[in-house]
């Protein structure tokens, strides 16, 4: 499966070591490759958990300061250990299944949602020579593996056997499939300019960040990305005042933690995608590539958090109008203009 997994870019020495170990233990060389793949996945999971913890802490602190509060302060220095305390609480909490739930679907849903977000992580180019898995069709891959997330949300909403969950799940899914249309079309402009779907090549082809050529595309992508992650001002699916907590009302403990993790992982993936496609990814002077990648992703993540704590919530009909009547036509217009300019120049 070399074409799927090119570990030579990431762990050449480690992989040789694992292969040697496999041969020494009398196993086929392939066992070493598999161990390498497992290690990469484990590393990514750790990276994912760490990123989410940093994000949750940042969100709470930023929210606090935006509202003239100080945010978490008690656990650790300026509350840095608060997230760890919360995680431990979620892990040790009893998990239970409501009596009216569809048991298996209810149990599987959080993992479906999380896996969809997590799988996208493996194709992101973190640095010039650092991509966990290098794919020729990286962009389509990221878009495609994210789609089962909608099904996970519908599974959660429906299987909980609770009307708030069901309505929340329906709203989430309707919103996500509506905003997927402008999101995908806004990406096509970048694909047309760079002429490739390989995320590495897209980054390398950016002498100037594509946001200069695709300002409208970037704007549409950003708005759709906020809506895709069901965050304020597009958080009708979880509107506390009317739907308690939307599709995950009936979830608690570790299963709720997975939904929470999935929300932040999706946020990270979409921000990283925006940084890669529109802001030049790991390219930048003076610092190593991964610093630029993380800095650009962080800047967009800050925008996400900033939006959440400053804008009021949309109404359900306004939300659909924005997607279908404004963003989608604008995205098509952007695509047409990009095509015309490319042909004429």
């Amino acid at each position, binding site marked *: *499966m070399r*074409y*799927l997994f090119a570990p030579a870019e990431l762990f050449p020495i480690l992989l040789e070591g694992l292969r040697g170990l496999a041969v020494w233990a009398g196993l*086929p060389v*392939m066992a070493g490759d598999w161990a390498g793949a497992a290690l990469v996945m484990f590393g990514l999971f750790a990276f994912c958990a760490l990123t989410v913890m940093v994000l949750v802490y940042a969100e709470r602190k930023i929210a606090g300061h935006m509202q003239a509060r100080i945010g978490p302060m008690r656990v650790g220095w300026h509350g840095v250990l608060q997230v760890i305390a919360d995680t431990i609480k979620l892990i040790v909490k009893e998990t239970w299944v409501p009596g009216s739930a*569809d048991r298996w*679907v209810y149990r599987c849903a959080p993992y479906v949602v999380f896996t969809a977000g997590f799988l996208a992580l493996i194709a992101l180019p973190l640095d010039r020579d650092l991509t966990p898995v290098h*794919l*020729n*069709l990286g962009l*389509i*891959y990221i*878009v*495609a*593996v994210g*789609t*089962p997330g*909608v*099904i996970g949300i*519908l*599974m959660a909403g*429906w299987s909980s056997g609770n009307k708030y969950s*069901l309505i929340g799940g*329906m709203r989430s*899914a*309707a919103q996500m*499939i509506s905003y*997927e249309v402008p999101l995908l079309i806004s990406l096509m402009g970048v694909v047309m300019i760079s002429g490739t*779907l390989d995320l590495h090549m897209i980054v390398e082809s950016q002498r100037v960040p594509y946001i200069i050529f695709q300002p409208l595309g970037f704007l549409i992508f950003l708005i759709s990305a906020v809506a895709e992650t069901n965050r304020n001002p597009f958080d009708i699916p979880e509107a506390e005042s009317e739907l308690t907590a939307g599709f995950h009302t009936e979830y608690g403990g570790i299963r709720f933690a997975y939904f929470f993790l999935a929300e932040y992982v999706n946020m990270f993936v979409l921000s990283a995608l925006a940084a890669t496609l529109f802001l030049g990814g790991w390219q930048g002077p003076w610092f190593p590539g991964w610093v630029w990648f993380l800095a650009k992703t962080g800047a967009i993540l800050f925008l996400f958090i900033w939006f959440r704590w400053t804008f009021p919530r949309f109404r359900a009909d306004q939300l659909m109008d924005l997607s279908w009547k404004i963003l989608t036509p604008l995205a098509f217009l952007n695509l047409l203009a990009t095509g015309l300019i490319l042909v004429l120049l």
Partner: protein
Amino acid sequence: MATIIGFYLLALLAIGAGILLVSSRNLLHALLGLAVASLAVAGLMLGLRAEFLALVLVLIYVGAVVVLGVFAVMLTGHFEKAVLPPSNELKILGGGTALALLVLITGVILIQPLAPDAVPAQVPIQKLGALLMTDYVLPFELVSVLLLAALVGAIVIARGKED
């Protein structure tokens, strides 16, 4: 070796999910069966190095068809008891069609056996796109008209009768 094990695991998963899809009387379980079967078939395509096809299959079947299916079930208003009757008046026609399709496919495979050492072609997507816009532009446009008709039909059914 690993490829063969992977093939059989994915094939078993696809068949199992397919059986769930046609035998489950709960419509939503059936749709989840379709999602799993599509993912398994996409995995098989990855094994054949048809990466683009695999990703498009996931994008369209899991991302669109199953989600729309769930919506369709929920719009009927029976989502809490989305239970199918064990059979209906079309069972002879449906069974006959399935049987005819099975005979047809088996016949084609028997008449025109697959080359045992066929190397799957790596078609670059640039070529695929160019073909869709030149040689196959008419079928491509016809399919889009079909989808448009389905879309209009769905809206008509969902709106119901005008008062």
